[in-house]
């Protein structure tokens, strides 16, 4: 065999050997990691299983019923409460903009369905704008303060808007 050819094969074999060794090391490391992770998973699954059993034990309907009697006093749903399904309840329409002047407020009040109006009426200090001098009312409305919703309706509207 001639020298350059032999050198090539020696180098190739050596490189392959080193490469193989390196890969084997890496793979072994990964394999150990994998085995460790799997062991942890199995241990955790076992723990979850034990905790599920404990959770079920602590959630015995009899126990919950007793706790309810003592602290909550909840009662089963009466048929008359079920006459209307959750899907049939109309979504409340968006309330009037908070910064609105008196004339927009009036329009919003007529557009709102009765329960919403009731709600609005129930929270007059929040909803009804304070009487303002004519000069201020004529000025452009100040931007709504997003950080501080003024009523529940406004909060809902804000959340709905941000989605």
């Amino acid at each position, binding site marked *: 065999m001639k020298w350059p050819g032999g050198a090539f094969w020696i180098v190739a074999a050596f490189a392959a050997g080193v490469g193989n060794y390196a890969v084997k090391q890496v793979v072994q490391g990964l394999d150990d990691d994998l085995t460790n992770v799997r062991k942890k998973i199995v241990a955790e699954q076992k723990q979850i299983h034990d905790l599920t059993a404990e959770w079920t034990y602590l959630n015995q*309907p*009899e126990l919950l019923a007793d706790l309810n009697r003592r602290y909550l006093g909840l009662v089963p749903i009466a048929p008359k409460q079920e006459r209307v399904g959750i899907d049939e309840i109309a979504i409340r329409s968006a309330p009037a903009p908070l910064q609105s002047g008196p004339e927009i407020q009036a329009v919003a009040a007529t557009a709102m369905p009765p329960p919403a109006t009731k709600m609005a009426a129930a929270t007059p200090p929040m909803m009804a704008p304070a009487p303002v001098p004519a000069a201020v009312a004529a000025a452009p409305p100040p931007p709504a303060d997003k950080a501080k919703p003024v009523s529940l309706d406004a909060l809902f509207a804000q959340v709905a808007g941000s989605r």
Partner: protein
Amino acid sequence: MLSAQRLDENPCRPRHFKPPPCAPVVADGAAAEFLDTTRTRLLLAAALFALIFLVVAGRLVDVVAMAGAANDTRIARSHLVVPPPPARADIVDRNGTLLATNLDSPALYVDSKIMLQAGEDPDAAVRAITTALPDLSPADIRAKLVSGKSFAYLTRSLTPRQEYAINNLGIPGVEFEPGEKRRYPLGDLVAHVVGYCSVDNIGQAGLERGLNPAIKGSGKPVTLALDARVQFVLKDELQQVISQFNAKGAAGIIMNVHTGEIVAMASLPDFDPNHPPTTDPKHETADDKDRIFNKITSGEYELGSVFKIFNTAMALDNNVATMTSTFDARNPIEIGRFTIEDYHGKHRVLSVPEIFAYSSNIGSARMAVAAGPKLQRDFLAKLGLLDPVPIEFDKADVGRPHFPAPSAWREVNVMTIAFGHGIAVTPLHMITATAAMINGGILHPPTMLKVPDGAKVPGVRVISQKTSDQIRKLMRLVVEYGTAKLAAAPGYVVGGKTGTAEKNVGGHYEEKRLLSSFIGAFPMNDPQYVILTLVDEPHGNKESHGYATAGWTVAPATSRIIQRIAPLLGVAPVDEKSPDIVRALQIESLAGKKLEDY
């Protein structure tokens, strides 16, 4: 030859040394040709090896540098760490609530030899162990510690906390043996359904016994049709009936009429499957027997008037009677040594709906006589009332019906069977056959296992759709005007039939020892669920005006159960006065008439 000769010609060469030729000697053309061939072969072999090494190197580069075949998980899969499968699979309810599971529970044993060799003070060890495990007897432990034997169990199961405490003691020779223990987190709630296991993890009762091979073999959780929430409601209300009427026991079962799935089954008194009562004949008490007995699957009862559902269906389906037929119920029937009377007799000729609503024994007996023994027997057989019910429980736990032999099935038997006496079946029979009466006429075998959504449920037609519609109307009539007005639950269109049977004790019926039962279904215009409740030896009280009959005991309980479980089972209430529902349940012959109150 040349080189060899040259060596030989060396004068300084020692005489004894004759080196071998160091190169092949080419003698002639043929030898040279042979050498060439060999060289070519060598070259080919070297090329082949080079190729193989190149492939290996190429693959290395591919794996390391190019992350080749990243999805190839053959190597990773070859040695997975998997937890050993549990000795018994979990049992869960239809919503995934755990009903039975195996928890690690090591046993504690002592190797007395090691302990004594280590020079441990037995008394100190006993004190330490009893502090951690106060349930054990100190004398017993001491005896085991000093026995000198190399193995003695101190206890067969430890909780993780106890295991930790004992381990902390560090007593030499006190060792743990890994083990699993079957646990029932819901305790007595599902006692009779799930049953229990022996220390060696073998099913002893309930589904643990009936499904033992499936639970042991698969490792996958067994999903039951049972709904733990509905089960709680049923048990809670039955418990109330027992305390309200000072009864001996009670039982109830709730079934889906379209699939045969049993969503609740309770039998009281019951037991805690974590600490089952002994079944050892030497130590078993009457109370143990009573608690471990499942009235629903094993109890064979003469259920009384609830059987009139089948009697009426038989007459209507075989054209023995129509809804407008009438039967004479003016006078009691004297036959042999029996007298058949009505509990609240109307003493007049009654139509079929009236016989059903007032629960007339006389009318029912006459209807059955018109049908004859053969028809009656065949009809009951068709409903499966003469064979054990096919269900997942062990055969030994499923009751066999008692009824007269065909040759002894005489007229008196025909009459008494019409109102549920002289034939004893299990409540499971009763509910299975009743479901077929109201679901459109298809008999589905009952099942404790959840039926997957959309799965085809086996079933055979036993009565026509028309007869089934009529039975629905009759059962609704009983709640509207008849013996079960207290079973009404507004919005759920309840229908049903009461049965108050005197218990047969030693061959004669005892007037004061009743078995009151009510079978109800809802909503009657489109039945979804059927409920059977029964109470064993109730005693009348002030609220029930001294009555212990079904109409006063289990019928109101059924109303309460329905109101509590309907929202859980997704049955929405309806307007019972709506024209559609009124029309669907109106009996034509009674249109415009009001039935007199029962």
